[in-house]
């Protein structure tokens, strides 16, 4: 097997979203890969929701529960820590990505580790863990199949639950043939099952020889000091059961009070994410192996990462911390569906990324992601935690403007419009004039096939010219008509 690359920590490219998006839109393989989303994850979620009549009520319960968690976060974290220690585990608090990476490296060195297996963890992507450990000379193997494929390609996940969703099967075959050179060249790799089998054989060896297993956590439970991972492949379980050390990397916002509270959220998680009633494996881990346990790790460590979340907690963006990372917002987002996850330029793509990333890596780098939205509201409509994503994105747009990060032309346009809007009579007169002028210049066709500064838009479609009157004119007429019928309070 060829040696794996040694990637540098992920450098955000969110500031060049527009450039990334253009590249993505002309990438035919990516477009083919993304085309399955509406009939796949979106349809599956809808079916699962329909099978559970209490789904909508459960979303309210989940929202309130997560608000309660955040309101009492300090107390639940203290309780959680006490329970982990009581179960024989260790808790490491990390304020920054560097702190977290350093703590994990220390644990690996203390265990004299050479080989490390990893379950899927977005937080580990956030802190650039692989690069940090590899630079220190450790072998790090991603064991989630999608993540493993990405590691072979030296790429980052483009989706938080389906990390390799941007790839088509043929690309994976090419990667396996390129990287697994010790296997016969004429072997069959035509079916997904054949590719899965090959990865299974290779990763088996890695599972069995690893010294440390690192997983993320979907939830942490204050009642018991347990960490939960939710998987379908079972890779997370092999990662944490076979090596002598299990390290959990989790952000501070993952803590929930009780097993019962986790149950409520788990009912929403898989259904929202993949449309499954429940994933194949939901695993609760508490401390290291007990005295009479015949298997399991001898040591259990939890890294509690802040990395900007405590600031978000005190900000007007607190609601984004309710997120349970189901990914439904991405699957339903028209922008994500068009450009995929890499265009967003950092770990968390899609609307959650637009609401979260500026808080984690700054407005200068990621503020522009808030513009990558049509504000259609589908993300909020499907969010199991009812996070008001359009509202949060709108607020980031305002902050981006206030901090002078909005491009000059956009600023001028917005300023001009704002000034005009303060003079209603001028605004109405001008819009009446523009409507007439546009109708006139569109001619008989009634639409523009080309417009200055909008060539990219009109290249794919015509812009219909306004027909007749302005919105304000129509509104005023309807109000008048309604008043004459004696029900003036009723809007038309």
């Amino acid at each position, binding site marked *: 097997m060829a040696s794996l690359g040694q990637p540098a920590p992920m450098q955000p490219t969110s500031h060049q979203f527009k450039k990334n998006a253009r590249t993505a839109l002309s990438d035919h393989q990516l477009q083919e890969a993304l085309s399955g989303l509406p009939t796949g994850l979106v349809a599956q979620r809808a079916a699962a929701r329909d099978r559970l009549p*209490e789904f909508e009520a459960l979303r309210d319960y989940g929202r309130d529960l997560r608000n309660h968690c955040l*309101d009492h976060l300090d*107390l639940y974290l203290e309780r959680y820590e006490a329970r982990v220690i009581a179960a024989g585990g260790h808790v490491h608090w990390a304020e920054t990505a560097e702190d977290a990476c350093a703590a994990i490296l220390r644990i690996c060195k203390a265990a004299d580790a050479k080989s490390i297996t990893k379950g899927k963890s977005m937080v580990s992507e956030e802190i650039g863990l692989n690069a940090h450990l590899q630079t220190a000379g450790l072998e790090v193997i991603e064991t989630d199949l999608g993540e493993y494929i990405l590691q072979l390609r030296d790429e980052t996940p483009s989706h938080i639950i389906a990390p390799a969703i941007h790839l088509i099967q043929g690309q994976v075959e090419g990667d396996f043939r390129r990287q697994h050179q010790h296997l016969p060249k004429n072997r069959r790799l035509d079916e997904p099952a054949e590719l899965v089998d090959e990865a299974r054989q290779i990763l088996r060896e890695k599972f069995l020889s690893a010294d440390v297993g690192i997983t993320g956590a979907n939830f942490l439970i204050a009642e018991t000091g347990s960490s939960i991972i939710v998987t379908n492949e*079972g890779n997370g379980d092999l990662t944490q059961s076979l090596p002598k050390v299990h390290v959990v990397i989790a952000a*501070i916002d993952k803590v929930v009070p009780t097993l019962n*509270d986790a149950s409520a959220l788990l009912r929403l998680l898989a259904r929202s994410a993949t449309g499954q009633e429940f994933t194949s494996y*939901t695993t*609760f881990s508490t401390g290291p192996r007990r005295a009479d346990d015949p298997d399991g790790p001898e040591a259990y460590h939890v890294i509690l990462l802040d990395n900007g979340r405590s600031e978000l907690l005190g900000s007007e963006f607190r609601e984004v911390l309710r997120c349970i990372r189901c990914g439904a917002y991405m699957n339903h987002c028209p922008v994500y569906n068009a450009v995929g996850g890499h265009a967003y330029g950092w770990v968390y793509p899609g609307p959650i990324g637009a609401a979260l990333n500026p808080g984690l890596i700054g407005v200068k780098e990621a503020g522009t992601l808030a513009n990558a939205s049509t504000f259609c509201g589908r993300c909020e409509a499907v969010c199991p935690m009812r996070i008001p994503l359009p509202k949060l994105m709108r607020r980031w747009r305002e902050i981006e403007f206030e901090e002078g990060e909005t491009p000059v032309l956009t600023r001028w346009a917005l300023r001009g419009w704002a000034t005009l809007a303060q003079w209603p009579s001028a605004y109405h007169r001008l819009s009446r004039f523009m409507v007439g002028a546009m109708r006139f210049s569109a001619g008989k066709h009634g639409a523009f096939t080309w417009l200055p500064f909008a060539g990219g838009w009109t290249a794919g479609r015509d812009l219909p010219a306004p027909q007749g009157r302005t919105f304000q004119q129509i509104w005023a007429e309807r109000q008048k008509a309604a008043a004459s019928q004696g029900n003036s309070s009723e809007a038309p």
Partner: protein
Amino acid sequence: MSRADILGKIRNALDVSTDDKLRQNTVAARLWDLPRATAPRRVAAPNTDLVACFIEELERQLATVKEVARPSEIPAAIADYLRANNQPLRLRHGSDARLADLGFTALPEFEIETGPATPNDSTGLSCAFTGIAETGTMALLSGPANPVTLGFLPDTHIIIVPRGQIVATYEDTFALLRAEVGAAAMPRTLNLISGPSRTADIGGRIVIGAHGPRRLLALVSSEL
């Protein structure tokens, strides 16, 4: 120190102090009262056939489910299943005395081993603590009786589910667990298993047998 700094930042963000009795009481109450969300309607009615619901949901998730009338029928049921799937009559289970008493010895061609899984094991046999009707989920507690690796290394995983241990919800399982092992005491690993290992990471198509078992058999049996 990171711990004090992070907790301090959280308290600042929430605008609270460490000695706020009301908040402490709220948290203590939730940990004591263990409130539950409303149970799913499919298992909430008092006369629900939980066993039927459990089986239906588990089969939806690509597992095989068989019912046996008596524990003594388990070895033959397992042998049938393994033969039907072209698997050797060889399995490993934990030190659970109930499994040793099942009578595998009556089938001399069966090769039985005990202890945690090894890479060469073809079939692992576990006992569920509960079956959970709402999603056809089985709760397994790790320990000498149920080594956790038995459910992940072998190609075939077989789980015996005592019929009387089939409950409606996850919360019911946790209530039984608290009663059995005491509040806040958890086994090293509590596995909720709802199907065989699967992935959709290649082209979005579901493939069974990613890293864990390629097939899962649940045997619903009267009391062991």
